């Protein structure tokens, strides 16, 4: 398998490429549905071989989605933190001081400004990062993570979270959310229009009456109409699948970037194994915030199922797979001790 022979730089490059491809497909899907709708229900048409008309519906859907995401873009971090009842992380205990120090260490390794650190009062070990760019970023850990993980593991987890910020994953997922919302809106419009006009062919003729110069326009219109309906039914489903695929790619990317920062695959590997051992779901996480955590925090969504379909709708790759990839990186490095810099704890055999 190619992954076994890659170092984390190559893994990162591959992940970025794959994300880009997914986003292209996404945009194409959105455009196809939008333009198809404008063809059928508005005044977009092909006259004498060139495109005329105005893609009004496409733009409305796009505008709506953009407006929604701008709200979360600028208000985002505070909203999220409030929803999980996080409070600022203070150096009131040695463990908290250690976490604050590790945040600083990872910011140095990531060549990023130091994010603000927050604490969630939850026994389940987990963490997330949010923020539109590195200058406005926030990392949040649970008390459970602080209690159960040692310094090396915390480095791995925080490295992963800060990688999300550095690679603008939060922004990417917001953009994806715009496209998903836009597609849903367009599909919805198709259903309503069909309901009111009693079919697609009739709707197509409504505003295009003046443009059909020859009889062949009507057949093409009906064909496009059928395609649009099919697309409207399937697009939201595929959009969701694509969004999940992008999310999973970014998770793998963040894992590889965590290794880039720590130069120590063992750090994140041990952390994920430790999380795999615990069973408890997070109290304050919801469907809306689940994707941001390092491991899916919801009940019954442990990322353990490796079946094809279980995986398709998951925001995170299966834990087992992630651990495998990290182990491959560790073996690539010859399982040797990490460079002196990663002296995670005092230099005793126990890390």
């Amino acid at each position, binding site marked *: 398998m190619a992954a076994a022979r890659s170092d984390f730089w190559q893994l990162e490059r591959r992940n970025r490429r794959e994300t880009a491809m997914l986003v292209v497909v996404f945009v194409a899907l959105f455009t196809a549905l939008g333009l198809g709708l404008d063809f059928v229900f508005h005044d977009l048409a092909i006259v004498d071989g060139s495109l005329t008309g105005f893609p009004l519906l496409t733009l409305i859907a796009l505008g709506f989605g953009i407006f929604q995401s701008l709200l979360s873009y600028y208000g985002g971090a505070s909203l999220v933190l409030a929803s999980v009842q996080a409070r600022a992380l203070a150096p009131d205990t040695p463990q908290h001081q250690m976490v604050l*120090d590790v945040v600083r260490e990872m910011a140095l390794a990531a060549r990023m400004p130091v994010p603000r650190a927050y604490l969630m009062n939850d026994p389940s070990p987990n963490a997330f990062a949010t923020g539109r760019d590195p200058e406005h970023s926030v990392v949040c850990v649970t008390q459970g993570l602080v209690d159960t993980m040692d*310094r090396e593991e915390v480095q791995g987890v925080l490295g992963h979270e800060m990688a999300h910020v550095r690679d603008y994953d939060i922004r990417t997922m917001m953009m994806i959310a715009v496209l998903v919302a836009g597609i849903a809106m367009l599909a919805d419009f198709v259903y309503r229009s069909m309901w009111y006009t009693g079919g697609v062919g009739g709707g197509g003729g409504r505003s295009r009456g003046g443009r059909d110069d020859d009889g062949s326009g009507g057949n093409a219109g009906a064909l496009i109409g059928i395609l649009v309906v099919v697309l409207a039914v399937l697009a939201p489903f595929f959009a969701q699948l694509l969004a999940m695929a992008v999310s999973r790619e970014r998770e793998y990317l963040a894992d590889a970037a965590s290794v880039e920062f720590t130069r120590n695959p063992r750090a994140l590997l041990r952390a994920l194994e430790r999380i795999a051992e615990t069973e408890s779901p997070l109290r304050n996480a919801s469907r809306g915030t689940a994707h941001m955590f390092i491991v899916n925090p919801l009940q019954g969504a442990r990322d353990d199922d490796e079946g094809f379909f279980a995986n398709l709708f998951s925001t995170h790759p299966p834990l087992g797979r992630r651990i495998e990839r990290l182990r491959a990186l560790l073996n690539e490095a010859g399982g040797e001790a990490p460079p002196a810099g990663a002296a995670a704890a005092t230099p005793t055999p126990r890390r």
Partner: protein
Amino acid sequence: MSASLVVLIIAIAIVGWAVLGYNGLVSLRNQVQNAWRQIDVQLRRRHDLIPNLVEAVKGYMQFERDTLTQVVEARAKAISAPDQASRMAAENQLTGGLGRLLAVMENYPQLKSDQNVLKLQEELTTTENQIAFSRQAYNDSVMQLNTRIESFPTNLIANNFGFKHAEYFQGAPEDQAVPKVDLAMGGGTPPPPRA
């Protein structure tokens, strides 16, 4: 479109690409310089921490005179070093000495009950890590800059405007060595640093 319009557009595109390329190189070069200074910041932090740590542990570790002395002396050398080379050598010696000190501290369980010592231990650990990570960050920045300078077509801009390769930071051998801990009670002299 007329031919002259096409030529104009191509010319603008080329100039635009050149500007972007140049600015990208400037940005990377500044990143490298910043990363270099960042290492310095961390090294100075360490200088400031050491006197407190030595004071705090001295009372508990009477038999570790040698270890403590080495640390204090290496620090003094680092602060007063006349040039870069001797500064680097002193800093590496200091890293080695501190590593040994931290290892030896594990032998003194009483130290663990002293909150002050624990706090200093954590500060020292994070400072060592930050030094190492800032060196890593420097090398990563150097790699980025050098790759950009060497890659086509940005190398055309780089050569024309005098962007030079940056040097990687090389650690000294004693940096990479895991300090050997002498577990004999009552201390003993720790092994000399590997030259």
